[in-house]
């Protein structure tokens, strides 16, 4: 069927150089805009061209050009040996990926959403994450598990869970959550180059969003360090930590708060494991107030870990209780109005910030 056609194509042409990146480079305007989708695509492209051991594997990544078109053009460029369509069996292809990584290849395994990674979680945790420890460092597993995480729009309870907290609690894994195109490019490159298993949590709703990128970001050797958060907006009054889509909400909330006289500092975590505790604590020591924002379930979430870290290290600097904003403690509703209420909105962040900064007018004591 399709496989036959593919064979023919291989015979005929060498991988065509799809000018995905170069098209962008030809624009000479100062602030280039790049969608997250293109950022991921370009990062994959560059890493695959730089290192022949890197290969991509997942459902619909090849012929279909990627379920979300992230791997557009890669099959044509690199051929079916390096861009492998898999059957619908996450446990199967994740296991194959880990096995390939044991051998020394560098697989990038795509899950159509991270909800499906639950089917393969045994391979992610037991086969990949723990192997380095269990083999006394002899086995390295340079694998990247990537895909969209968290709530999309109207995909229901079984397709909307955020797995950041789950994976971030596992020693042996690295968990990255990019927000902007710069994050996506830099962190994916870092993840592919990393010798340890990396869980790369993207966000479906961010794929189409454009962000300005500098020339440095577009350079093929651009890479972001894993384990460093970015302070997206510097502030004085309250620290808001967020990751992935929530960074956008936090920034909007900060703009609203500015009008009310509250200067918020927004931290884009970028890396959930390892968590950049020093940046967060330094920020809280400066502002004395903390709000954590995440899309996932509240209990045992990322915010809980951040709160604990701050209480452990910067207790004496806290001027207000730490506020956690998280998704509702229920499986995601399907109805659009309920879904909206189950996910943190900008107003929730604004309200929490005002609560943290609350001061009442001094009242007279009863005489």
């Amino acid at each position: 069927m399709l496989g036959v056609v593919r064979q023919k194509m291989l015979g005929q042409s060498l991988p065509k150089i799809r000018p995905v990146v170069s098209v962008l480079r030809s624009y000479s305007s100062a602030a280039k805009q790049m969608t997250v989708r293109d950022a991921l695509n370009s990062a994959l492209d560059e890493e695959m061209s730089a290192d022949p051991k890197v290969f991509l594997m997942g459902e619909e990544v090849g012929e279909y050009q990627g379920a979300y078109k992230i791997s557009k053009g890669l099959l044509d460029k690199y051929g079916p040996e390096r861009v492998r369509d898999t059957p619908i069996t996450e446990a199967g292809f994740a296991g194959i990926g880990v096995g390939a990584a044991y051998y020394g290849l560098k697989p990038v395994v795509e899950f159509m959403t991270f909800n499906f990674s639950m089917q393969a979680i045994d391979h992610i945790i037991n086969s990949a994450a723990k192997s380095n420890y269990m083999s006394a460092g002899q086995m390295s597993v340079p694998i990247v598990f990537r895909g969209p995480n968290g709530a999309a729009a109207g995909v229901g309870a079984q397709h909307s869970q955020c797995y950041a907290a789950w994976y971030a609690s596992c020693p042996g894994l690295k968990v990255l959550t990019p927000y902007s195109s710069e994050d996506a490019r830099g962190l994916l490159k870092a993840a592919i180059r990393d010798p340890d298993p990396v869980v790369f949590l993207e966000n479906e709703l961010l794929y189409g969003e454009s962000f300005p990128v500098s020339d440095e970001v577009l350079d093929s050797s651009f890479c972001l360090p894993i384990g460093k958060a970015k302070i997206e907006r510097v502030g004085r009054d309250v620290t808001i930590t967020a990751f992935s889509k929530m960074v956008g909400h936090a920034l909007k909330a900060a703009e609203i708060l500015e009008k009310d006289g509250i200067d918020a500092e927004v931290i884009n975590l970028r890396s959930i494991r390892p968590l950049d505790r020093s940046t967060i604590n330094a920020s809280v020591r400066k502002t004395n107030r903390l709000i954590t924002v995440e899309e996932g379930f509240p209990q045992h979430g990322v915010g809980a870990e951040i709160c604990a870290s701050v209480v452990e290290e910067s207790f004496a600097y806290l001027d207000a209780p730490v506020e956690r904003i998280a998704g509702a403690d229920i499986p995601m509703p399907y109805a659009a109005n309920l879904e909206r209420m189950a996910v943190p909105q900008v107003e929730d962040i604004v309200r929490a910030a005002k609560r943290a900064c609350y001061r009442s007018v001094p009242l007279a004591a009863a005489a």
Partner: protein
Amino acid sequence: MAYASHIINHSRKLRHVPRLMRHDHAVLVRWFSNGAQSSVCKREDVIKICPIGAPAERETVSKFVARTPVSSGLSKNNLSRTVMRLGIPMGGVVYNRELLCSHSQVLSRRGFASDAGLPPHQEIGMPSLSPTMTEGNIARWLKKEGDKVTPGEVLCEVETDKATVEMECMEEGYLAKILKGDGSKEIKVGEIIAITVEEEGDIVKFKDYSPAASDSGAPAAKDLAAPPPPPKKEPVEQPVPSPEPKTPKHSSSPSGDRIFASPLARKLAEDHKVPLSNIKGTGSDGYIVKADIEDYLASSGKEVSAPTPKSKDAKLASLDYVDIPHSQIRKVTASRLLFSKQTIPHYYLTVDTCVDKLMDLRSQLNSLQEASGGKRISVNDLVIKAAALALRKVPQCNSSWTDDYIRQYNNVNINVAVQTDNGLYVPVIRDADKKGLSSIGEEVKKLAQKAKENSLKPEDYEGGTFTVSNLGGPFGIKQFCAIINPPQSGILAVGSAEKRVIPGSGPDQFNFGSYMSVTLSCDHRVIDGAIGAEWLKAFKGYIENPESMLL
């Protein structure tokens, strides 16, 4: 579906229910949603049997679990019915109690009967129609006692101060008794308003039902009628220091209470040796925050260095001034008096009182006091006594205004205005009408001394019902109008006595007399003009004829 199979599995295990109850309590508890409360069965003497698999599950798996009624009167029968359906022999009363104890945790939110002899029924509580609603009225019942009700049918109209809402029935059954009829007012949320039963035959049994016994069902029943709360997006609002049960005190009185201050504020206070008990918290829930400590430091720092800022003022060439920051007492005085003037409708009544006799009496008493070693009695003490007795005669002036009623106090506690370097204090003389002049005098002196030392405690100035303010004598004021101290309704302003010439008996004759002007400021909501005048008449009577104070 999983629920059903679990129940069946569970029923097989029920042979060993006693053991199960002790060990697998957690499993059963899991079935019930977070709102389950143990409110219904509290009394030791009532034996209740929870149907195996408990009431809440009835809603979901009614086919599998026997809808066993819960009541003590029919206990044995019910049990056997349950037993037969599930095919498990069970013991007697003792066993039931065990069940009761372990199940009490998970009993349904519905108000099952706690009274002996009543058939199973649901108690319908006043629903909460909004997060802020605390009570409501029943406008009218759309269903009568004995009517059949089905889910979705409107039972009654509930009124809050905002809107009238129709309350729908949740369960199928018959309306057995209406406890709060048409027009019932001020029913608290959760209070039982009606009873429904499933069997029509049970309705008659509720003819004389009184809700007194099953009040414990009310809080449970409330959850039933209230709409499910919207999912909370911010579950933890105040995690570490202030959960709901421990309500932190807002009042500034630090007496032995836990002081709520943020960690940063505590550290700052410790570094700068600031006593936290002096500071009023302005954070949410009354927390002391960093800014409060900073304000305190700024104010106390500035008070010490008040003379020095002159150098800074040189910047502003036009005006030369010094900024005196507000002390706590200044802030309190300012806000209270502003509030008083803004909210109390003041009016002023003035009389001149002839104080010749009063002065004579005073000198007589003082010579006695000197002889016996007591303290001297001042004019003010006599004024206080006269005012107290006048208040006993005209108790309308010894009252407070509230929106719902006028509170007339039986005790006459008089606040006396004392001016000190720190500010104006008004310590209270309790039961001034019952005290003798010497004890009044002594108390005033003692309290004035305490005020000067800034060591007045709240019990020294709280609880007053009337105030006397004296700017006569050393202050030299002829007459003035004082501002009422809320929540009191009157204040007496005393001026200085001066010798006047008054017409005598004959046409060209004149006499001398000492006259003291007093002005009574009244709250017109409480004291009408005539009443105020009556009081002043009484007061004047006591002052001009001080021997009448002995009566």
